[in-house]
């Protein structure tokens, strides 16, 4: 045996004590969040602005597969340079942007945001893509990025 004095820890009991403290903390946090999140996101009332026209696929299929369709097409457009396909994000906006705001975002009434807020699915598209229909790029202001 070694000559040095040392403290050997009883590993399991210490782990257990530590884990129980963590558990208490977790329970407190979760119950707090549950209380805070009492209000539910309302079911979206989707307004189809162009009710007379036809989407690229039936609504049931669009509801289930629009993300796959868009993801598939984005790679073809960007990486292979295939333009003019049936599926197109800008195509979605042209039809589904709200008449009031001109956008698919803004509030629960807007086409993309309404459903995605309800389904609690993060929308990544609009960090880069323009959510407003018929937008024309504005010229750079005098002190803009391109000309600092």
């Amino acid at each position: 045996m070694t000559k040095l004095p040392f403290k050997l820890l009883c590993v399991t009991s210490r782990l257990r004590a530590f884990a129980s403290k963590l558990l208490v903390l977790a329970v407190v946090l979760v119950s707090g969040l549950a209380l805070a999140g009492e209000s539910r996101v309302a079911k979206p009332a989707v307004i189809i602005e162009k009710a007379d026209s036809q989407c690229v696929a039936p609504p049931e299929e669009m509801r289930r597969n629009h993300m796959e369709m868009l993801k598939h097409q984005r790679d073809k457009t960007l990486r292979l340079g295939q333009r003019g396909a049936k599926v197109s994000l800008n195509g979605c906006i042209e039809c589904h942007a709200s008449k009031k705001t001109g956008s698919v975002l803004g509030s629960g009434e807007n086409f993309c945001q309404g459903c995605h807020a309800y389904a609690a699915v993060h929308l990544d598209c609009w960090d880069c893509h323009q959510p407003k229909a018929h937008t024309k790029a504005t010229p750079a202001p005098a002190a803009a990025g391109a000309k600092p």
Partner: protein
Amino acid sequence: MQLVPYSRGEERFFYTLAALGGLVTLIGLASALYMEIHGHAVTGMNNQIVWGLPHVFAIFLIVAASGVLNVASIGSVFGKVLYKSRAPLSGLLCLAMLAGGLTVLMLDLGRPDRIIVAATHYNFSSVFAWNVFLYSGMFSIVAVYLWTLMERRMNAYSKPAGFAAFIWRLILTTGTGSIFGFLVARQAYQSAILAPMFIIMSFAWGLAAFMVVQKAMFAWNGLTLHPALRNRMKNLLGIFVAATLYFVAVYHLTNLYFAKQVAFERFILVDGGIFPALFWGGWFLVGTVLPLAILYTPGLLAMRGAVMVASILVILGAFCQLYVFIIGGQAFPLEIFPGLAAASSFGDGMVGQYSPSLPEFLLGLGGIGIAFTITTIGVRVFHFLPQDDLAKLEAAGHVLE
């Protein structure tokens, strides 16, 4: 063996330390969130200096993580008894620092929310992508190695596991050095010497970090390192610091010999403002000359905590060195038109300006907080304290008087 429970004071001390580490970690995470919401506009990084303070912290932690494992390798691979009892602590520190460094690196990304993309899309010609593999492999190998060390029935496998970890860590640091070594565009990088240089730097930084943690743990337990053992370890640290000095000297001397690199060397060594100051005052004086003087002057070495001070100076020097290497290397204007003086709205021909902001500093500090917290909890719940069996050491030929 005898079980001695913690005293109340020790309990309180542990929770204070854990809370402190947790707080620094939380502040780091909060800073990362702030940076993610507002974008890198709230940092000092820009289109000239694209990698800043978070990368200095992250690369220090990653390089030191691979170096700290060296202590275990000397025991397992090279069979030195003195280092064998230090192998578990060395493995834990490796995991802790790697976790801290990688967290900082990931949270500094422009899109940290897409980390899953980095894990599912690989471009195999990218040194970065190799490193993703090397880092995750390092975690698994060191975890297995720790298991073979700490589970008595697995002890027989600790030597091959230690060997695998040793080889892997050499490749890993080669990979880290190659992140810069493979960059053809910039004057500061594009050199094959960077890979071995990073390995040597990792030896020094890792051992310095190990010495600091070991000293703290010994002090906490009311122990002192046997002077003969301290002597061996401080000599090794001295050799590593001197070897780093050698590699840095070779790197700069080759550059000075190439006419096209002279302007860059002038910038880093003479007239580049903060960079020569940090190079000479920070890395050379504080991080190299002073520690070597402490480690090899008997009068200085005899002072209380001399090795600890030397180790801390080595770590401070490491940060200065990385700041000069990473930020100084980017600040020097890119030579797009050799022989021509260039001017533009995008900083062509001008020295890049960088003033780190608070959030990016706190994010980097958070990485150290993560490493600290993991280490503190690890050494409490598992048995990591190095224990020197003096009889065994003497049997192995150590002269202990």
